[in-house]
């Protein structure tokens, strides 16, 4: 009985792990063309995970495995969105990877392992599980970037990602060990109460906090710990870039919230100061450097840096509004990033990558529908109403102003205006320039359908954002036990 109450909150993780092992073996045994059986099994697994996550949902915060695991509304919402993002990534990437000979069983299995890592991170309530989830995610991603073995660029990207990722893990672990030394516990709740009681040594805590924040900043890819982002986004095959740039951002949000808000809330005045510097530097450098890029993947990498900086603004504001809008921003960013990278893959074909800005010239003449969807996505990234990107930026700024940081909101708006330039430049290229190539665009029907849904979701959520916004706010409120 006790065992079952322990296992039930983690039922989705257990199911996923079992299914990954089944798929690993089934992929070897079943003769199939185009890995179709494996692909369907993976999609069914994701569906099964969502059913289990919804089915095992309980109100309130449930702890399991000796307080190492937490199941609350925030984790359930984030997990469901993670399944959705991974599933969309697989649909977008199937055609792209098949023509490049990379659509293998290992690719899908590693993607599922990465997703397991994200789930562990989202549900972690202990420094140990946070770290292990992060490593599970990172190791799977390193391997996936390197899967294109014959490409020197991909191998170099994997190498850089691996070395800088290991360095960041080292920083994070060092900081965690300091926090452990000061508080005598690894469990987030116990750490918070030990700091609250005033028994923990303040110097040691701040010393550890600096390293933890640096490690987090590395993993989020915010300035000045952003060096790996452009190279990895550029060098990795676009499908892997999409995986790195989408679902893990949700897990990263949960990771930052769990450590900083749940575990180190009493140190809020220390870490929010650090986050202010990180956020301003990221928005500035990300948006300005993105202007100079001619490669779309590189441009989107710098745009990620800027968006992550923007997401930190919500965390700086604090409270239900701040954390809720931050979560909303992360969700919206994942949706837009899936669409943008999906578009690169849709326009690519055998032996050709549509990843430079010139490839988007005159897209309107070649395919008006895809050009329109790309327009929606770019408008959303730039924050043009009525798309959801506008609403996400607006609500974060609202929270920032509500917390009394008016100058921070002004800086954020200024950098967003600078950023709007390079997003709108793509729209200009698509609609007002002559196409450089007239090769007909052939798109798989499932990916094209998903792209349409994705583009319209950006528009629809912008018109009706309240549902998703209130889900985020309630999730954050219930999970963090905020007033």
């Amino acid at each position, binding site marked *: 009985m006790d065992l079952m109450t322990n296992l039930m909150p983690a039922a989705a993780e257990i199911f996923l792990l079992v299914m990954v092992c089944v798929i690993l073996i089934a992929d070897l045994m079943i003769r199939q063309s185009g890995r179709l059986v494996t692909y369907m099994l993976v999609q069914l697994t994701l569906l099964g995970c969502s059913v289990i996550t919804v089915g095992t949902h309980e109100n309130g915060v449930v702890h399991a*495995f000796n307080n*190492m695991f937490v199941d609350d509304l925030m984790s359930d919402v984030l997990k469901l969105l993670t399944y959705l993002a991974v599933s969309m990534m697989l649909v977008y990437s199937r055609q792209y990877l098949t023509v490049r000979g990379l659509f293998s069983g290992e690719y899908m299995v*590693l993607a599922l*392992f990465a997703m397991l890592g994200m789930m562990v991170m989202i549900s972690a309530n202990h420094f140990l599980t946070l770290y292990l*989830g992060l490593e*599970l995610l990172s190791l799977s991603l*390193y391997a996936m970037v390197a899967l294109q073995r014959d490409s020197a660029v991909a191998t170099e990207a994997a190498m850089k990602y691996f070395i800088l990722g290991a360095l960041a893990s080292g920083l994070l672990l060092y900081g965690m060990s300091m926090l452990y030394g000061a508080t005598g516990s690894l469990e987030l709740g116990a750490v918070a109460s030990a700091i609250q009681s005033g028994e923990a040594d303040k110097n*040691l805590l701040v*010393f550890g906090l600096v390293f933890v924040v640096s490690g987090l900043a590395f993993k989020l890819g915010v300035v000045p710990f952003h060096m790996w982002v452009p190279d990895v986004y550029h060098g990795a095959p676009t499908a892997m870039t999409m995986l790195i740039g989408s679902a893990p951002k949700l897990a990263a949000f949960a990771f930052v919230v769990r450590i900083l808000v749940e575990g180190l809330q009493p140190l809020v005045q220390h870490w929010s100061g650090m986050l202010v510097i990180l956020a301003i530097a990221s928005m500035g450098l990300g948006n300005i450097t993105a202007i100079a890029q001619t490669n779309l993947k590189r441009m989107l990498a710098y745009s990620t840096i800027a968006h992550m900086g923007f997401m930190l603004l919500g965390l700086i504001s604090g409270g239900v509004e701040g954390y809720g809008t931050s979560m909303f921003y992360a969700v919206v960013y994942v949706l837009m990033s899936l669409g943008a990278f999906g578009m690169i893959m849709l326009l690519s074909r055998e032996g050709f990558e549509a990843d430079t800005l010139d490839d988007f010239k005159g897209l309107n003449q070649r395919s008006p529908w895809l050009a329109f969807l790309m327009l929606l996505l770019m408008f959303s990234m730039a924050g043009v109403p009525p798309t959801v990107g506008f609403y996400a930026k607006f609500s974060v700024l609202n929270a920032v102003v509500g917390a009394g940081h008016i100058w921070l909101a002004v800086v954020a708006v200024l950098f967003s205006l600078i950023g709007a330039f390079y997003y709108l430049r793509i729209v200009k290229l698509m609609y007002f320039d002559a196409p450089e190539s007239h090769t007909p665009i052939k798109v798989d029907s499932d990916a094209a359908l998903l792209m349409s849904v994705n583009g319209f979701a950006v528009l629809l959520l912008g018109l009706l954002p309240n549902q998703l916004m209130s889900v985020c706010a309630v999730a954050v409120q219930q999970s963090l036990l905020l007033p």
Partner: protein
Amino acid sequence: MNFETIMFYAFSAMIVFAGLRVITARNPVHAVLFLVLTFISCAGIWILLEAEFLAITLVLVYVGAVMVLFLFVVMMLDINLAQLRKDFWRWLPFGAALAVLMAYEMIWVLGSYETPGGNAAIKHAADYSNTKELGRLIYTDYVYPFEIAAVILLVAMVAAIALTLRRRKDAKSQVISEQVATKKADRLRIVKMQSEHKDSAANQLGEQK
């Protein structure tokens, strides 16, 4: 200062020295050997803390297996040191300035830090089993992280195979089912030819000589 404290400082000094040498040694093989020394000193400190099982495992697994593999790999790699050190002096001022800044900040934060008395390590009776206690904790309180660690190892296996396995076209392998199902007609060909006479065979031998 009792014997244990002296040993602690001796091991700690060895760790710091060996750790520094790992990154400053010119020869990569020496660096690996210094890393071995670091691990052994760490094991010594663990012995002082009565964590015998961990200490022995560290020596057995890390020094005995992992580092030996490491040594093989380092010996097989053709590392061009001149190439690696080409820009050393160019970047030294930059790196040194950063390092000094970091050290200054760390001293600044921790400078006012007074080492608290802390708790002495808990001493156990001689019949206390460290190994048993570790096993109990790993399989009860820490079973969740333990399982995740196992999954990480599985990922490492999958990734290593996915990244290195290349199916060679010229590789030779047996297909047992085909071998067993082979019929006489598949392998044996009977050729009709005229019989050879003994003297003609001898003539041929003679010609060869």
